[in-house]
């Protein structure tokens, strides 16, 4: 990676931080736990790095490390989305007339 490329990536990072700040600061306190679970789930995106590592067939060590990384990242992706959905399903509005 040369300097120019690094700057482009930095550019993306800066804009993403800004966009993220705008969006995240609008999440109400009510949903802060789902927010953590959600960001945890999308952190499973490190799969895109570990999948390549595990599938490159470069050498044994790299494949094993990659496979463990795939497992760890997919725990977050799979478990994270499931639990966030489970939580969000519980947040209900107005009680219907209670029996």
């Amino acid at each position, binding site marked *: *990676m040369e300097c120019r490329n*690094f700057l482009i*990536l930095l550019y*993306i*990072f800066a804009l*993403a*931080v800004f966009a*993220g*700040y705008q*969006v*995240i600061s609008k*999440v*109400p*306190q*009510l*949903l*802060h*736990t*789902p*927010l*953590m*679970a*959600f*960001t945890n*789930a*999308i*952190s499973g*995106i*490190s799969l*895109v*790095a*570990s*999948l*390549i*590592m*595990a*599938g*490159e067939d470069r050498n044994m060590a790299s494949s094993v*490390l*990659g*496979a*463990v*990384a*795939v497992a*760890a*990242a*997919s*725990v*977050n992706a799979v*478990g*994270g989305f499931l*639990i966030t*959905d489970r939580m*969000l399903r*519980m*947040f*209900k*509005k107005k*009680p219907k007339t*209670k029996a």
Partner: protein
Amino acid sequence: MPIFEVIDFRQNVYLCTLLIASVFFLLGLQGLSHPQTARRGLSLASLGMLLAVVGTLLNSKVVTYEWIVGGLVVGTVIGVPMGQWIPMARMPERIALSHSFGGLAVALVGVAEYFNYARQLSPFDIGAVGFEVLLGTVTFTGSLVAFGKLVGVLPGRPQTFPWQNTLNLIVLAAALVALAILVAGPAQHAPFNTLLGLGLLLGILMVVRIGGADMPVVICLLNSYAGLAAAATGFALNVPVLIVCGALDGGSGFILAVHMSKAMNRSFRNVIFGAFGAEAERKLMEKSTGVVHEATPEDAAEVLRLANSVIVVPGYGMAVAQAQHAVRDLADLLEKMGAVVRYAIHPVAGRMPGHMNVLLAEANVPYDQLYELDHINDDFQRTDVSIVVGANDVVNPAARDTPGSPIFGMPILNVDRSGAVIVLKRSTNPGFAGVENELFVRPNTMMVFGDAKKTLTLIAAAVKNER
């Protein structure tokens, strides 16, 4: 060169799916601004994740699938139970554990990358890999320690020893020096291994000194580190989606950590470097005298029967006793008798941001009855009865009235201003901050000791009988 060469086509599909994933993640987060749009946002984000994974599998660099399938199967087998069956009260532990998985994944990618490509990496690359490994390892061990503390395998109280801060700073400085040496000479393995070891050590050192009440801040910080580690991976591998995701994750953790620190009136530095409730200060506060009005569930029921307005203030004790359903049952009963019941949620109640909201939602409490501190605090003086369920520091009037108290300045819920206060507590022990609570000896306070769930059930039964 033909534009639609097969390999290029696959590569372009891969890049497009990553772009779509980035946009979907942002839109998903935007959905979280309201409970009604949140699930739609989540579906969008999970679709983005699926696309990114499929796109990556199409990447021309991927040539074998055995290791990938193995990893995915193991991850799914662990991930599904972690998503489906872990009870809501255990959420802080679960989140801490998954941060450690995130840190591990990123650190391993960094290690593999270093040993495969060390000689071909530019200084920018190697710097990014270094940060990736450092942040990944700190997140990994730090989150494991946090997990151990929350589960109770490790002692929950802050573990302190002399020169601790100095030691932590030295370890951090040494790690940064190792990183600098690594950038200067990437072919040498020793600085890389040192960096790896110091990162693992630093995570442990950073979190062992954190006490239970500070856990929310630390969990947020670890969330932030996990995100930054992912962003560093994006820099190292030139994958923008990782940078976007890392920025969102890191930003979110940071925003939440600041929010939590503010709600405790403490600076970041204080949370990280100062174990809470120094001994001398605690002694000072133990002088508070007064008579505790111990009451039976029947006494509490009598007060509640006459109440027109009730505010419930839940704390970590409610989570421990799993009392959220009992709270809801009592609230239903009171509402049926014509009282208005609301819930006041302090930002740091529980062990992670929003902990109480999730528990009450689990017990089917409608979210429009849950109020944030600022929106309900002025209403306590017009409220007949407040019920404090396993909360302590967040309702301690000393934070408002007693300069010199270790928690002075922390915003609290003004329950002491309501007509009567019913405090449900396991015992009169001070809370995690180690501070005596003056609220417990106020004349308008009645203390009902015992397991919160049992006590609430008894109170509900008594209210019913007297009716």
